[in-house]
């Protein structure tokens, strides 16, 4: 059983016990434990179940690469799935539950899958769930949905109580990884005076050397780490951050750092996670290496762990995995585990070294301690179910005949080390296969490049393939120096020297034993979380999968939450063997950020709730809020859809607003409409290019309705243009179009007609604008007193500056409702006061503020088009019967040439008409008019569609506009529209789109 030793554990404080719970049971650990070490200290070997076979799973690793020990952390609003126990620092009151278990961790029904594993091979899902087809919907999919997924997703109704934030940092050199190499690279770069940010994903600085020891410049590595850290802390140009992972490296020196501030101490105030958005001139990744498992039968049984992890738990936490640990290796490093266990007073019955001649100095040291070493051997099979009971030893060269069976509680395996090349590869750094050391390492001649075309990422230490302490230090010094130089800083650096015994080279072992029969390969795991075994990858190769990317998706190798940190190299080596190709030919899958999962909270940062997206508010917004406004989003604005009185539905409010405006007096807050000034000696010429109409000949004091098209001919915006003076035009745009249209005209001005003397300004927010609408509109303005607003002084489609009720105003006689209407603009700061004044003075005519729906209905009753309803990016003005607004005199305007293309002049283009249902009902929005026959896809042919549809309170019937084939030539004809169900047909008569007051008698008074 795994237990806490009486002595040892450099990270734990035995005077401070910490209570926590796992799987509903209470446990205690010590401050300094991780959840993983504390579970092991309490003999909790079994921590979860695998994804496919629900096999018992124990802790394998001690760091970010852990594939098995994933837990649901916390509960209620702080519940979080898929948290790695190995990187979760223990705190008082921590609660965790295992994942993917049903009904319980100890007894899991899904484990029967394991017995059927010969059937559940690679590509099982693709093969099994194909037939019969009807089974997919009713049998397979419900079953897969129920059994899929690991942790439980948080309840959709809960809200995360923690806060998160984004940080921005700009540095000369960013060093990722705080091991010996990272510290040395950072120190070297910092000595040059460069601004350095050094980050480390764990709580501790020093990396593997803290456990593996060694001596640097004549002192113990631990002391060198302490001194170097202290020196860095005292440098003003250096920022140090622990518990911060380098999550990703992107274009032009952009990197993401993921800082976990309070995960280890949830009661501390402040943000929980911080996402650092870093721009660095140079990035140094010193991300170390990850140990690889060995592929032997039963390598997934709880108690089989990475050799370095076994060593970490003993040295860091004083935790023993078992009294007797068999060490199995193909390299020298695992001997350190045997020695560490021996020093802790634990038994290592045998070190099984697959290499014929064994290791070097470390082997001799182990032998001197009296540890039995068997070379040229491997493990045939591990026995045990929920924990290891014994191992069978065989010759590595053979097929698995058992030489000895050795009882033990733990197996420490080492298949060698793989440099962590993820961050190097994120932005295009290439790799080389190192045959001697059997791993992929960065190719410094093919680095990720910055905006200057030179290397922007450099790799130091074991991440660069320099696994030895001394080699790593020399490398880190050179890299730190090079990074500083590339960032524009010079430094003369001297590398520290580390004492190092030469190690005997690794011998790559991809299958143990070499000739393992099928029964053994069927139990040799590659991907522990997703249950991918040696036999699965071999089957994929046999079935014709040659690309590593395809094999990955077919077998799900490396697709689990650990993204293949442990399994990928073993998997692709197995694939290359099966294909008879070299490993470099097969290559790797793509490394994508983030390195390990980061929280959604960190990604969102502060952007939640009210500040998720800023809302634009008119000067009258507060009045709207206080008076029952039912808002709708229009661009970033919130506009009142209707003002709902108590006891009234939204629909009833709209009805009331229309009738009140038509019969007496309505007010609309039109401040959101875009207002763009176009000014300059060439402004008239420029306006003629922007609009389809002639704008240069518009007289000062007059207004004209104008259309804007894109260069490909489609109608993009409309609005009233006013000529202000000799060289100034004011363009009204749609609410949603203001910024877009301003950008559009600026684009043409800056990039095509840049020599024209024109300036533009978007003054939308400088003005508040109110539409005063209805038969009593003039009476209200006259009551306010001031400028002459009579028909003679201010005729339809003209504007005047003046004063009303003491307010400086610009009054436009324009109408989007067909009523007598004035749009009055006042400086924005006076908007609310002016609005209040109109309401007060208009009381005698039952002045009624109205919203956008009322506006829409009134414009539809008049047959006025609306951008976004009648247009959708495929509609040209000619489709809408707006030929009168397209100049024939002008040689050129945006869209003119495009509108001459054959498709645009096709007589079969659908044209705008009015539609009146036979039964008086309201047509469904977007409904299609059906035609005879079917198209090539077997769908019914269509001959038109509804673009706007409303119930008209004025006419008390359904009215609609739509685009119909040959529509204007078919007046009076009844065509059929399909209802939402696609079956019911609604007959509608084609009529003029102008339903109300066709002669304009109401607006022209």
């Amino acid at each position, binding site marked *: 059983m795994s237990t806490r030793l009486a002595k040892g554990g450099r990270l734990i404080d035995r005077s401070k016990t910490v209570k926590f719970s796992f799987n509903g049971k209470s446990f205690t650990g010590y401050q300094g434990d991780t959840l993983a070490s504390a579970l092991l200290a309490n003999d909790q070997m079994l921590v979860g179940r695998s994804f496919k076979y629900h096999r018992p799973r124990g802790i394998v690793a001690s760091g970010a690469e852990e594939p098995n020990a994933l837990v649901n952390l916390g509960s209620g609003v702080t519940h979080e799935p898929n948290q790695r126990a190995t990187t979760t620092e223990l705190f008082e009151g921590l609660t965790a539950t295992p994942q993917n278990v049903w009904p319980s961790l100890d007894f899991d029904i899904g484990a029967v899958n394991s017995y059927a594993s010969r059937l559940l091979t690679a590509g099982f899902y693709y093969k099994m769930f194909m037939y019969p087809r009807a089974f997919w919907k009713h049998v397979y999919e419900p079953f897969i949905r129920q059994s899929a997924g690991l942790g439980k997703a948080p309840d959709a109704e809960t809200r995360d109580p923690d806060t998160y934030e984004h940080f921005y940092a700009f540095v000369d050199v960013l060093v990722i990884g705080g091991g010996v190499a990272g510290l040395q690279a950072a120190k070297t770069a910092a000595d040059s005076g460069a601004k350095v940010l050094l980050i480390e994903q764990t709580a501790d600085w020093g990396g593997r050397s803290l456990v593996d020891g060694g001596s640097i410049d004549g002192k113990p590595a631990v002391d060198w780490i302490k001194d170097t850290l202290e020196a860095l802390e005292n440098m003003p140009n250096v920022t140090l951050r622990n518990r911060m992972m380098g999550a990703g490296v992107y274009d*032009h020196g952009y990197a993401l750092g993921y800082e976990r501030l309070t995960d280890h101490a949830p009661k501390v105030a402040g943000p929980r996670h911080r996402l650092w958005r870093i721009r660095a001139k140079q990035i140094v990744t010193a991300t170390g290496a990850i140990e690889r498992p060995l592929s032997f039968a039963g390598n997934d049984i709880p108690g089989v762990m990475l050799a370095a992890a076994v060593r970490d738990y003993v040295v860091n936490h004083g935790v023993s995995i078992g009294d007797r640990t068999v060490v199995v290796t193909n390299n020298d490093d695992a001997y350190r585990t045997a020695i560490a266990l021996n020093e802790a007073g634990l038994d290592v019955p045998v070190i099984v070294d697959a290499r014929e001649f064994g290791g070097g100095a470390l082997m001799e040291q182990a032998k001197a301690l009296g540890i039995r070493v068997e070379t040229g051997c491997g493990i045939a099979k591990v026995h045990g179910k929920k924990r290891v009971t014994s191992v069978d030893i065989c010759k590595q060269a053979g097929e698995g005949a058992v030489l000895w069976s050795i009882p033990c509680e733990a197996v420490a395996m080492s298949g060698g080390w793989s440099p962590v090349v993820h961050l190097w590869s994120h932005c295009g750094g290439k790799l080389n296969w190192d045959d001697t050391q059997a791993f992929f390492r960065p190719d410094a001649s093919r680095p990720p490049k910055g905006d200057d075309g030179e290397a922007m990422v450099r790799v130091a230490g074991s991440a660069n393939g320099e696994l030895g302490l001394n080699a790593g230090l020399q490398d880190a010094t050179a890299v730190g120096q090079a990074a500083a130089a590339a960032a524009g800083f010079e430094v003369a650096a001297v590398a520290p020297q580390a004492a190092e015994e030469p190690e005997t080279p690794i011998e790559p072992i991809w299958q143990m034993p070499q000739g393992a029969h099928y029964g053994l390969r069927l139990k040799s795991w590659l991907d522990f979380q997703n249950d991918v075994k040696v036999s699965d990858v071999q089957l994929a190769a046999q079935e014709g999968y040659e690309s590593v990317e395809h094999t990955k998706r077919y077998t799900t190798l490396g697709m689990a939450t650990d993204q293949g940190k442990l399994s990928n190299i073993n998997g692709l080596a197995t694939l290359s063997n099966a294909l008879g190709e070299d490993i470099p030919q097969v290559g790797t899958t793509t490394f994508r950020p983030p390195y390990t999962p980061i929280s959604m909270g960190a990604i969102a940062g502060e952007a939640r709730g009210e500040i998720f997206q800023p809302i634009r508010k008119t000067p009258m917004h507060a009045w709207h809020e206080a008076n029952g406004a039912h808002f709708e989003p229009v661009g970033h604005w919130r506009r009142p859809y209707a003002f709902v009185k108590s006891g009234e539905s939204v629909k009833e409010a709209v009805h009331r607003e229309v009738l009140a405006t038509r019969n007496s007096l309505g007010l609309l807050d039109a401040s959101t409409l875009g207002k763009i000034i176009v000014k300059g000696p060439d402004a008239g010429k420029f306006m003629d290019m922007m609009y389809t109409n002639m704008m240069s000949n518009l007289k000062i004091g007059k207004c004209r309705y104008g259309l804007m098209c894109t260069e490909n001919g489609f109608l993009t915006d409309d609005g009233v243009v006013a000529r202000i003076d000799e060289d100034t035009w004011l363009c009204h745009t749609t609410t949603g179009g203001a910024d877009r249209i301003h*950008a559009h005209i600026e684009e043409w001005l800056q*990039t095509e007609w840049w020599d024209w003397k024109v300036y533009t300004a978007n003054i939308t927010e400088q003005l508040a604008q109110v539409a005063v609408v209805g038969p009593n509109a003039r009476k209200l303005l006259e009551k306010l007193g001031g400028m002459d607003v009579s028909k003679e002084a201010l005729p339809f489609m003209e504007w005047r500056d003046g004063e009303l009720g003491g307010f400086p105003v610009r009054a436009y006689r324009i109408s989007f409702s067909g009523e007598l209407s004035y749009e009055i603009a006042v400086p924005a700061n006076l908007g609310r006061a002016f609005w209040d004044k109109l309401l007060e003075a208009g009381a005698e005519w039952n002045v009624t503020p109205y919203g956008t729906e009322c506006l829409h209905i009134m414009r539809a009753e008049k047959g006025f088009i609306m951008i976004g309803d009648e247009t959708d990016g495929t509609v040209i003005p000619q489709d809408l019967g707006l030929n009168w607004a397209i100049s024939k005199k002008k040689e050129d305007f945006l869209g003119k*040439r495009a509108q001459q293309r054959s498709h645009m002049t096709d007589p079969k283009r659908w044209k705008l008409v009015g539609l009146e249902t036979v039964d008086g009902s309201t047509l469904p929005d977007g409904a299609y008019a059906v035609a005879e026959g079917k198209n090539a896809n077997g769908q019914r042919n269509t001959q038109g569609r509804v673009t706007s549809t409303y119930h008209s309170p004025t006419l008390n019937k359904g009215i609609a506009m739509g685009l119909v084939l040959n529509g204007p030539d078919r007046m009076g004809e009844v065509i059929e529209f399909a209802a939402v169900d696609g079956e019911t047909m609604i007959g509608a008569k084609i009529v003029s789109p102008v339903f109300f007051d066709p002669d304009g008698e109401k607006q022209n008074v």
Partner: protein
Amino acid sequence: MLILECPYCGVKAEETELTAGGEAHLKRYGPGSSDDEFEGYLFTRENPMGVHFERWRHSNGCGKWFHAARSTTTLEVFGTYSAQTTEPPQEIKDKISARHPGWSWRDQS
């Protein structure tokens, strides 16, 4: 995320400050042009692996359009320059030639 220096305001702008505007140095064809000319102007674009000239707008900054010469493969930026020109400045072409001898883009080299 790219960084491009706005030639107008001098700010080294991050991609989030900018709006991409597609290929630079297009010649506009208006009324009177042939269908082929107009189609080419409206729809046909270079799509090179390597040197490219692009239009960008410093939309969340000074609002100005400018041009950038960069490599679509290495993301190297050879320079940014005024949008108010019909062809890339010689110094930028020289810089590209130093990196990519014999390069060409449309009729530029």
